[in-house]
């Protein structure tokens, strides 16, 4: 295949833009994962847990499931097709912790597992905390509180 042929080939492949397909799969998988969360939310309310407990334990359950599926090697397989559908739900957050932690285990428990767990979770917590403190300051000074 010469250069021009390759260009043609690349163009042809790129033209079948997979955006629509990507979005449909992301919608179905992301929506599906949220439904699992909703199911646990309903279940926990049904067995009589209070609202606060439910809002704490639904994410914890989802984190557990995300971690479990990562260890079993299933989350990566799903993520190959589902893109944002697996990245955005909190199960993806768990995946982003467990996956590098396993990969870098050979570098030890401190700088391997301990540090690499936070490759993605770290930035999430850093920027989430920054945003929340900035909002807290605005709310304190201009929000009419106290």
């Amino acid at each position, binding site marked *: 295949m010469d250069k021009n042929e390759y260009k043609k080939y690349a163009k042809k492949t790129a033209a079948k833009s997979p*955006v629509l397909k990507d979005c449909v799969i992301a919608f179905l998988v992301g*929506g599906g994962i*949220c439904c699992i969360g909703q199911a646990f939310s309903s279940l926990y309310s049904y067995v009589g847990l209070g609202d606060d407990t439910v809002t704490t334990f639904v994410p914890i359950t989802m984190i557990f499931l995300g971690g479990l599926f990562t*260890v079993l090697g299933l989350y990566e397989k799903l993520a190959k097709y589902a893109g944002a559908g697996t990245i955005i739900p*909190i199960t993806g957050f768990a995946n982003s912790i467990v996956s590098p932690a396993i990969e870098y285990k*050979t570098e030890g428990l401190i700088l391997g597992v301990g540090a690499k767990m936070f490759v993605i979770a770290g*930035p999430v917590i850093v920027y989430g905390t920054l945003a929340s403190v900035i909002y807290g300051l605005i709310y304190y000074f201009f929000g009419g509180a106290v």
Partner: protein
Amino acid sequence: MEFVRAFITGGIICVLAQLLIDYTRLTPARIVVLFVSLGVLLTALGVYPKIVDFGGAGATVPISGFGYSLARGVQQAVKEKGFTGVFTGGITAASGGISAAIVIGYIFALLGKSKEK
């Protein structure tokens, strides 16, 4: 009905992220950080709580829901404790999720086998 709403809400949030992946060159890590920050911003503007009222887990399970709980925690803490709440509210509200993520992540990391390189 609440399942349909959760499905649609969660699905749409994921599609927005998917569009960013496909049309911009933002890495997944940046998109996740962006969505957490947007969750805080939209909660501050009073928009995200309405999305949560409608979509339930469809809005709280996506990572933007993490931003929502940070922002709501700050709101409540500032109301109750004043200035201290600015610094304690966010992480306090998110502490369950963060601790669970660390503990569960750690245990699964120990259980998992790293692939031979």
